[in-house]
């Protein structure tokens, strides 16, 4: 059984007890525990079930690489699935529930999969479940889905908040182990700003557990002093609980800080995402121990040797009472020695190497531990915990020589540098045959914007495996990074660790070396996804030979640990099966994040009300107070209609339309884009941008303009006013303001960069109000000020002046067909001006109107709306807007495109009005059918509805549409099948159904 010892436990505070529950069972741990160490201290060996076979699983590692110990954590709005117990700091009241079983962890029906494992090898689902066809969706898949998945889905809206943090720095050090800390100091001594990020709550990494001496200090003392020193340096920032999750192009580094996971509900954000630009990144992420692939290596109680050592030294927890150690390298001896010294019985060290290890072996032997060289684990027996180990010769097929009862097995297959960050952004690896590992290839580092290396790997992450090598490497790496970041190196004394030579590792990818098939089918490579040695071999045999094929076919390395324990073992087995060298097979791609990061953190603060900026006009609150029914238009909110009294939205729209036609209405048009274009070449520039001739426009005049893209399609429209010789004010659609401004800038910056033109987006500087209707002039004249008579300000003119007490710019333009003044005042005056107009207009029955009334009014006049009549495939010629295309210009954007055969074809669909034969309203987006079907069996069509409304003015439905040769077919009746099952008949008519001659807007 696993239990807490009375001694050891450098990270726990035994005076501070914490109560927690696991599957409802009350348990106790200490401040400083992880959930994993606390579970082990309570002899909870069984912690979860595997993904595919629902095998019982225990804690196998002590850090981010843990594949098994995942739990549902917390409750309600703080519930979270798949929390890794090994990196979850214990807190009082923690409630964890095990995952992926039914009904209970101890008794899981899903475990039948395990008994059927033989029938469920890698990729079995590609070969079956095909008949009968409908069964996949209705029977097989629901069953597979139900048994797959891990934790439970959260149900409630997240109660926590998240934030983003932006930093520029010279050097980022990823990892606060001895290598990272030494490198950080070496870099900082040059004056560079250094940011050190460590994923755990503690500094020093493995060294304090592994022992040794640096600069004549024991490692823990050395770390403590060094951290203190770094904390005292003004140019160094240290952050624990902050993982570097990804390295991206151009020195972009992402840090993931778990601010309050260990104190849930604390004030402030739960996670903080650090978005960092660094000149250099030091990858000091350490190394990850590899499991050994022997049969039964997944039975709870089998653990990485280093993890077993961590639990003992850091948390005072012995993973078992009678332990067997299996290894192919010297490091596992440290575990045996530590356990032995703590009073745990170490039954045997099985060293696969015929000649065993070096000095550490001698030390173990001196302590009285029995060491069997050339021996291996043939099989671990036990279900929910280890019962015994069958020992065999390593160079054999697994014939048992002896069975030894025990309750825990420590295994070590050697170490793999954590090269993930190095690889994220293109850093390459090299295979080190002696050390049996992939390590960063210094000559092929990830490069920054300047094409020079942007990262330096150091310490264990760089393949340095002894303290002596690590200290020297880290010191050099820190200096190298500082220099690469542009700093001058100062003299500094190197860091030296005492030598502790180890003898060479002997690669073991399968244990025993020639394990028979029955054992291979029980030797796990990927614990969480249940991938065994036999699965990889099957994939290779079936032709899935590339690592990527093997990975995808078997799901090796695709679990939540992303193959931290399984990748290298898996690809070595693959190489072995293919008879290829490991480097020839290569690794799969390492992708961010290093370990999973919360979606909440990625999203950051921007949620709910502040998800995207909400743009409000100065009159927003007034609208809200007067019944506005809002419509999102881009990031703006515009009133769709102002609903009054007992009416519904449609009644409101009808009322608003009538009031504009008969009296006077007010429309908030502040959202329309207002782009200022200025400079000696402004006219020439606008001539290229618009289809119209703008350079000939006289100051004081307005012109309705059309803008096309280079493909000839109409993208925006609006009124251009010439302010003076060099200045134009271009109005755009509400949705178009930012887009068109960018469009202008793109052309100016990339094509006509030598033209003297500046643009500025003034949209938010002005509040703009349309005063519309036959009584519009009366309202304005009542306020006094400038002369607004037809003579003084004719249609399509503009003028600056006073209206009442307001300084205003008045445009005589109309989008409704009525007499209309669009009046701009500084944004700060908008509300006051609006209220003044409402007040002055009261006797004339003034009412505000919304976007829907605006649409109806313009549709009655046959005016097009960008986004309704246009959709990115329509050219001005289709809309009867040929008059707005200047024939005098050599060129404008889209001109050439519009000359292409299909664009110039008479067969295009063109704008017409559509009048239903029964007065009903045509459905939105309906298509008109033509005779027969096309070669692909689709009904032929001959047109479609682009805008359709009920017209209160005419008392019937009105519509516009694009119809094949439409203008030539006036009076013809065509049919529109609706999705409602009805067919609508409509006559092709003129699109202008109100005041055809434009008398009303001209008064």
């Amino acid at each position, binding site marked *: 059984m696993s239990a807490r010892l009375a001694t050891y436990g450098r990270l726990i505070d035994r005076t501070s007890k914490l109560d927690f529950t696991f599957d409802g069972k009350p348990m106790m741990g200490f401040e400083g525990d992880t959930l994993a160490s606390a579970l082990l201290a309570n002899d909870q060996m069984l912690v979860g079930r595997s*993904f595919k076979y629902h095998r019982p699983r225990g804690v196998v590692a002590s850090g981010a690489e843990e594949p098994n110990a995942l739990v549902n954590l917390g409750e309600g709005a*703080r519930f*979270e699935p798949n929390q890794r117990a090994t990196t979850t700091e214990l807190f009082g009241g923690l409630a964890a529930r095990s995952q992926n079983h039914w009904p209970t962890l101890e008794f899981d029906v899903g475990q039948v999969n395990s008994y059927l494992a033989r029938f469920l*090898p890698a990729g079995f*689902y*590609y*070969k079956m479940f*095909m008949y009968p066809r409908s069964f996949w*969706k209705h029977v097989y*898949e629901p069953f597979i*889905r*139900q048994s*797959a*998945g891990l934790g*439970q*889905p*959260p149900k*409630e*809206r*997240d109660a926590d908040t998240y934030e983003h943090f932006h930093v520029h720095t010279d050097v980022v050090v990823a990892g606060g182990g001895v290598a990272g800390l030494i490198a950080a100091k070496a870099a900082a001594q040059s004056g560079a700003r250094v940011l050190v990020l460590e994923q755990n709550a503690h500094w020093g990494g493995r060294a304090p557990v592994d022992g040794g001496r640096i600069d004549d200090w024991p490692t823990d003392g050395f770390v403590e002093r060094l951290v203190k020193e770094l904390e005292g340096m003004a140019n160094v920032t240290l952050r624990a609980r902050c993982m570097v999750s990804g390295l*991206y*192009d151009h020195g972009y580094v992402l840090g993931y800080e778990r601010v309050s996971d260990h104190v849930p509900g604390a004030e402030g954000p739960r996670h903080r995402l650090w978005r960092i630009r660094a000149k250099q990144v030091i990858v000091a992420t350490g190394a990850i121990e590899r499991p050994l692939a022997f049969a039964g290596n997944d039975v709870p109680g089998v653990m990485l040797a280093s993890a077993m050592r961590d639990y003992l030294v850091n948390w005072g927890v012995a993973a078992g009472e009678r332990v067997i150690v299996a290894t192919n390298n010297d490091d596992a001896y440290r575990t045996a020695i530590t356990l032995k010294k703590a009073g745990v019985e170490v039954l045997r060290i099985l060293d696969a190497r015929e000649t065993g290890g070096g000095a550490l072996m001698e030390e173990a032997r001196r302590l009285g531990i029995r060491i069997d060289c050339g021996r291996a684990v043939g099989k671990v027996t036990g279900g929910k915990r280890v019962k015994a180990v069958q020992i065999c010769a390593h160079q054999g097929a697994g014939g048992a020589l002896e069975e030894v009862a025990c309750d825990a097995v420590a295994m070590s297959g050697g170490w793999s540098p954590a090269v993930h960050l190095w690889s994220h952004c293109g850093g390459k690896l090299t295979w080190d045959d002696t050390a049996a590992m992939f390590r960063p290839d210094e000559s092929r580092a990830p490069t920054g914007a300047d094409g020079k290396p942007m990262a330096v790997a150091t310490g264990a992450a760089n393949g340095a495996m002894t303290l002596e090598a690590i200290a020297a490497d880290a010191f050099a790496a820190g200096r190298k990074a500082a220099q690469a970041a542009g700093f001058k190196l100062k003299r500094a004394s190197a860091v030296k660790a005492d030598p502790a030579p180890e003898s060479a590792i002997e690669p073991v990818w399968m244990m025993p070396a020639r394990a028979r*098939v*029955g054992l291979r089918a029980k030797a796990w490579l990927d614990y969480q996804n249940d991938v065994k040695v036999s699965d990889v071999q099957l994939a290779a*045999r*079936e032709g899935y030979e*590339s690592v*990527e094929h093997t990975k995808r076919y078997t*799901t090796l390395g695709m679990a*939540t640990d*992303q193959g931290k324990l399984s990748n290298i073992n898996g690809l070595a087995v693959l190489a072995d099966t293919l008879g290829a060298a490991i480097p020839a097979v290569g690794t799969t791609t390492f*992708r*961010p*994040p290093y370990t*999973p*990061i*919360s*979606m*909440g953190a*990625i*999203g950051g603060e921007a949620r709910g*009300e502040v998800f995207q900026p*909400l743009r409000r006009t100065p009159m927003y609150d007034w609208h809200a107070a007067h019944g506005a029914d809002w*419509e999102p*238009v881009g990031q703006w909110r515009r009133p769709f209609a102002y609903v009054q009294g007992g009416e519904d939205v449609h009644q409101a729209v009808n009322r608003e339309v009538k009031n504009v036609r008969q009296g006077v209405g007010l429309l908030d048009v502040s959202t329309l884009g207002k782009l200022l274009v200025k400079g000696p070449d402004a006219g020439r520039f606008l001539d290229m941008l618009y289809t119209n001739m703008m350079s000939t426009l006289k100051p004081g005049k307005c012109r309705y303009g059309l803008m096309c893209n280079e*493909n*000839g399609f109409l993208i925006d429209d609006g009124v251009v006013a010439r302010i003076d010789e060099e200045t134009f004010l271009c109005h755009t659609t509400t949705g178009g303001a930012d887009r068109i401004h960018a469009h202008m800038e793109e052309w100016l910056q990339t094509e006509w960069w030598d033209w003297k033109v500046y643009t500025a987006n003034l949209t938010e500087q002005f509040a703009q109000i349309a005063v519309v209707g036959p009584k519009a002039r009366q309202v304005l004249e009542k306020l006094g000020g400038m002369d607004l008579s037809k003579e003084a300000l004719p249609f399509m003119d503009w003028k600056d002046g006073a209206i009442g007490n307001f300084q205003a710019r008045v445009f005589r333009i109309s989008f409704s067909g009525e007499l209309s003044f669009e009046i701009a005042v500084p944004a700060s005056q908008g509300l006051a001006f609006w209220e003044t107009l409402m007040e002055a207009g009261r006797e004339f029955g003034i009412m505000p109107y919304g976007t829907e009334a605006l649409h109806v009014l313009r549709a009655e006049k046959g005016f097009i709306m960008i*986004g309704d009549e246009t959709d990115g*495939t329509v050219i001005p010629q289709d809309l009867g807007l040929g008059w707005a295309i200047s024939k005098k210009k050599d060129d404008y954007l889209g001109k050439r*495109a519009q000359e292409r055969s*299909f664009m110039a074809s008479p067969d295009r669909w063109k704008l017409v009005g559509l009048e239903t034969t029964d007065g009903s309203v045509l459905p*939105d*987006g*309906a*298509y008109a059918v033509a005779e027969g079907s096309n070669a*692909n069996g*689709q*009904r032929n*069509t001959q047109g479609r509805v682009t805008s359709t409304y009920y017209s209160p003015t005419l008392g019937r439905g009105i519509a516009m549409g694009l119809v094949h040769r439409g203008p030539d077919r006036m009076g013809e009746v065509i049919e529109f*099948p609706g999705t409602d099952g009805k067919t609508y008949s409509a006559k092709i008519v003129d699109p202008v159904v109100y005041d055809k001659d434009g008398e009303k807007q001209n008064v």
Partner: protein
Amino acid sequence: MKRYSVFAVAREALRHHTGWERAWRSPAPKRRYDVVIVGAGGHGLATAYYLGKNFGITNVAVIEKGWLGGGNTGRNTTIIRSNYLQDASAAIYEKARSLYETMSQDLNYNVMFSPRGVMMLAQTQHEVRGYKRTAHANLLQGVATEFISPARVKELVPIIHLEGPRYPVLGALWQPRGGTARHDAVAWGYARACSAMGMDIIQQCEVTGVRTENGQVRGVETTKGAIDCAKLGIVVAGHSSVLAQMAGFRLPIESLALQALVSEPIKPCMDVVVMANTVHGYMSQSDKGEMVIGGGTDGFNNYTQRGSFHHIEETVRALIETFPMISRLKMLRQWGGIVDMTGDRSPILSKTPLEGCFVNCGWGTGGFKAIPGSGWAMAELMATGASPLAAEFSLSRFREGRFIDESVAAGVAH
């Protein structure tokens, strides 16, 4: 080819699965083939498959510079739908969708096509009108879709939040027979079937040149030597312009990285595929339980198949608004694929200025769903010189201005 079935699996289980044969052979290239297809992605393999199946042309090589299915075919978010607006698109995507329905049986390889339904949310009035228009178009195109109410949306997707403060859900375009399939299996299933017909799939072999004579294609140069052919099909997605340059013509294609990510796996909580185009994100849950999330393309052209962060942030943020529960899930991995974008965002299936040379590309962000239909049409085009499904997608449309623009109905075309 030994058939796959539950009985075969049971039989093999008894001998520890030692008797399975290779899914596809790994031959050395021959000197000459009737047809060479460059690119063993889904589209290339499907083209080869239908050349054999529909036209009996089996002296075919599919040449792949990496591993088959390793391009976008193995990187996409596997959404399959055919609720396109324009006739030409609806025709080819619906053909593809219907072939997906029986693909597992046709190929004797379970590609796990799952018609779980695809929903495109309307979150502005403009989108409502756009999707109503698509529904009307689909009605006449023979594609079964429906514009559904917010209440129905909630019923189909209980985890959705309808009343987002910025973009409330106003309805959705719903295609009940859309869904997802297992992307790798599609490539592998086709590869196995092609190999069984005697075709050669040559992996780890890069085409480095195109040999021509009097305006007629003669063969290709590869890293495994020269290979002759009478007809050449270029089906290399993001690298189409590179191959076209070798063949001496230019293509209106730009290559961009499209971003995607998955969460850690959880128990089933969402059955259908949801796309939210206003806020730029879409999500489905895989059979493994991962939430599969896709976003937009990076704003600059490039060829690195790498995940970048900015789009991920925007996408995740949008989806948290739509599905608040994902805030407490974790992103497991992110990646990018190079998508081949044409000016009108529609594919090119066409003859080329080089006699005997055909291209199939430009599927951009949404070509997984098209694989079988595209292969079907491309095979017909290569075998007979014309295909009604491909007719509108010819290269000449750019010269004539006959665009097939889908962005009309939805911002993205996944």
